[in-house]
């Protein structure tokens, strides 16, 4: 019989955590090279697509127990590109993203709801340019070999985040609705 010394108890806890909690607490890892976050804004009806080149995620998510999951996201705003040098030199400016003052956009989940069939609804706070807004983001998981792809899209109101101020606040020029699309390759996601 093993006596219940503090050391043994601590050892048992670690063992328990490793065995029982392993699947739930394991950190999933983002594979940036296979991931993309893009956005589509409409300029006088013309869809213009851009993307962020740098972003990272901290994900602790067990598909079997989605409600216990936590998803935190950071996007390096200065990495935004529309694929043309002219607008790209405008994006960091104060009236657009003001990247000098707000270099990162963040998302922090509050609740994750499973909708079945690999579909989830992630609610949380989306903070861009110093403004924080509630956001509900639909996510669909698809197994892709060793990785799991989390994909989805949602629409945000750019003016709620003051993206495009002064003369650019005119929604007849640039629509308020901006569609954000993401495709994130993750490793370490369990079965769903």
């Amino acid at each position, binding site marked *: 019989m093993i006596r219940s010394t503090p050391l043994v108890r601590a050892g048992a806890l670690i063992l328990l955590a490793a065995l029982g909690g392993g699947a739930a607490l394991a950190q999933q890892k983002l594979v940036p090279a296979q991931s993309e976050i893009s956005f589509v804004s409409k*300029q*006088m009806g*013309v869809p213009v697509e851009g993307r962020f080149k740098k972003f990272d995620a901290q994900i602790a998510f067990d598909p079997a127990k989605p409600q216990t999951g936590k998803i935190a996201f950071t996007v390096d705003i200065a990495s935004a590109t529309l694929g043309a040098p002219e607008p790209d030199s405008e994006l960091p400016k104060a009236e657009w993203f003001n990247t000098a003052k707000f270099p990162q956009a963040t998302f922090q989940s509050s609740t994750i709801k499973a909708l079945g069939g690999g579909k989830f609804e992630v609610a949380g706070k989306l903070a861009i340019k110093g403004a924080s807004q509630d956001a509900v983001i639909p996510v669909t998981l698809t197994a892709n070999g060793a990785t799991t792809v989390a994909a989805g899209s949602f629409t945000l109101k750019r003016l709620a985040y003051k993206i495009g101020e002064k003369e650019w606040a005119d929604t007849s020029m640039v629509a308020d609705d901006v569609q954000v699309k993401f495709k994130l390759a993750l490793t370490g996601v369990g079965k769903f």
Partner: protein
Amino acid sequence: MNTVPASRRYTGFAMLLHWVLALALVGMFAMGLYMADLPFSPARLKLYNWHKWAGVTVLILSVLRLLWRLTHRPPALPQAVTLAMPGWQMAAYQATHVLMYALFFAVPLIGWAYSSAAGFPIVLFGVLPLPDFVSADKALSELIKPWHEASAFALTALVVVHVGAALKHQWIDKDGLLTRMLPGGR
């Protein structure tokens, strides 16, 4: 000054297309020159989109005009005029018209291709998305860009020749040729 009989004049519809497009081409050329040097601003964005919408409208009117031209024989030059024209003038007259018609299509089509290649598909009047006949490709757009400009300058040069020739007939030859394209029964 001679007057040209009604049968020797262009039809009302041909005159309408001629003058509407004449105004449009002058306006588009000036607009293109002006907007290309504007800094990034809502004004620039607005002008670019208006320029594209107007360009597509010019293209559509040019199709209509070509169809009209192919189905309605334009009035022949008065014999007095043709007899007075040296061979090179006749050749220039033919060539100017053929080239202008070619550029009525080429200039807007190249502009459309440039817009598509640059990644900005044209949405006519902000509501009707037009298809891209070239794909978005930065390198390709840089390749196309000077051709929109060059073809527009070529068309403008031809318009100058055309107007110059018309005015020469009007003021130097005084043969009344211009009245063929002027509305009203003068």
